[in-house]
């Protein structure tokens, strides 16, 4: 499975192999969201292609591509009083014709998606009354109800407290689905992603396994911070220890 994009921002080549979690990291404004938006078809790339399982999504109709790619954009809330069931059932949109009702498959898919995110039986709760962590899990359930080949997530752990961040990322790993996500937290990215792409000023400057990509040199150049990369004492993953007392002088270059 390959996803390759060339965005308005610049030439970008990004890959997520089947079943793996590929992370997009980079400073604010580096183009992470823009790249993701071309994958879930909110934006149309001026040049380049987005391939899902070898198929260019632009050769598909919007509905066909929505059956293959599901997304969690940064839109997190709604001013409308929707129930959890109504939100998750939206994931069935690409499978339904006009005027058709909810059938057995839909109800089962919605219930299964809710159970996979640990929210079974929450269908009648009000979405807007949920905690931030619960809301994100429900939105993930909506994406799962789309039964996609690829999940795309834009900063899914934003505004969550640490425990809910860990819960959500664990949940994502457990899905074993091809996933492309933008992450702010570099340590989370190092733990959860199989592959990382580093975006800097709209271009990919490094790609590969987290251990290869996350070096003190790259962190200094791209993020402008001084950091040591050590081994996580509990998991053995790369652990980035930032120097919070001083930025890199040369970052201004």
């Amino acid at each position, binding site marked *: 499975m390959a996803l390759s994009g060339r965005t308005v921002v610049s030439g970008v080549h990004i890959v997520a192999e089947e079943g793996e979690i590929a992370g997009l990291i980079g400073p604010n404004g580096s183009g992470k969201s823009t790249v993701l*938006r071309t994958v*879930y*078809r*909110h934006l149309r790339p001026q040049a380049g292609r987005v391939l899902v399982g070898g198929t260019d999504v632009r050769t598909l*109709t*919007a*509905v*066909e*591509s*929505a*059956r293959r*790619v*599901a*997304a969690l*954009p*940064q*839109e997190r809330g*709604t*001013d*409308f*009083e*929707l*129930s959890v*069931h*109504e*939100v998750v*059932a*939206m*994931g069935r*949109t*690409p499978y*339904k014709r*006009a*005027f058709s*009702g*909810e059938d057995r498959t839909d*109800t*089962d898919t*919605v*219930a299964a998606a809710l159970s996979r995110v640990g929210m*079974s*039986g929450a*269908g*009648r709760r009000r979405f*807007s009354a949920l905690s931030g962590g619960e809301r994100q899990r429900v939105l993930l359930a909506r994406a799962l109800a*789309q039964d996609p080949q690829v999940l*795309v997530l834009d900063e899914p752990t934003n505004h969550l407290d640490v425990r809910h961040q860990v819960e959500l990322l664990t949940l994502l790993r457990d899905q074993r689905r091809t996933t492309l996500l933008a992450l702010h937290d570099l340590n989370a990215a190092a733990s959860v992603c199989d592959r990382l792409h580093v975006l800097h000023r709209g271009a990919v400057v490094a790609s590969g396994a987290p251990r290869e990509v996350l070096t003190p040199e790259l962190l200094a150049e791209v993020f402008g911070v001084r950091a040591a990369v050590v081994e996580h004492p509990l998991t053995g993953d790369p652990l980035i220890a930032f120097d919070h007392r001083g930025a890199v002088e040369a970052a201004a270059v």
Partner: protein
Amino acid sequence: MAPAAVERRERGAGVRAGRAGIALGAVLLVALTASVCLGSTRVPLGEVWSAVERGLTGQAPAPGTQDLIVWRLRVPRALLAAVVGAGLGLVGTAVQALVRNPLADPYLLGISSGASLGAVSAIVLGAGAGGALGLGLSSAAFAGALASFALVWAFARRGGGFRPLRLVLAGVGIGQFLSGFTHYLVLRSGDEQQTHGVLFWLMGSLGGAQWTTLAAPTAAVLLGLAALLARARALNALLMGDETAASLGVDVTRLRRELFVVTSMLTGVLVSVSGAIGFVGLMVPHACRMVVGGDHRRLLPVSALFGAVLLTVVDLIARTALPDQELPVGVVTALIGAPTLLYLLDRRLERG
């Protein structure tokens, strides 16, 4: 929880909507009947039914009875109230999803003002005649509604994205401007009798109801309901945001364009028969969401029914509140609706 139990619980919303529909249908019948019976002269129930029966079977009105009042005035007026109310409920629901703001309403967003200006321009320029169905008037009102909606939308979206507050303020501002222009046109036209009539109509009035005025709004409401129901799932997806909707396979730009046309068409036709009746489009979807939830497949038909009930009752109040004078129905909806808006605003602020 067992899947069967989950399923039963989710079915609850559908059952509730069904029950709400049946209950509202029954209430609507009662409200229509009351509206025909009550007024400046009271007509006993028995006489109403016999008059309706004679009317439906095409017999001439019986002499010495109130048949004429019932069949020529009261029945079409009650039906027009129901049809316009249903239309306002639909438009409100659709506009709220379109601009993703539960406090939106064609009246607040200046769409009704655009429709009024279109209709008044047609009258002043003499194009208002346009046949018995008032097609000239409706088309002018439709054009006005579409133009003002596009203007408000473009202004609210300047600089990308849109914030709810900016949208509502843009709507109020542009709406006031258009109303000012409309009133100028009306007052300049000279004829005092006509001026009074047009001003009364502008405030929202069902006084012009005849059998012939029913055709256009009825057709518009049925068409609108079908067009919106066909897009019910896309409307649901739109509530979460444009990006989410796009990721669910909805062509957001095209959907918005279609919704602009459908809501402007409905607003134009409704305004041309009943003037600008405010706040019904705001209150109805709110109340209905509390009962049947936010899924448009249920919300749209229930909003239409509740809108019909509400406006039928409001029109009855407008006709009977004062002993010797009729109030414009828009005055009554404003007296009920504006406090509702403030209450909703307050509740939303509390929630953050």
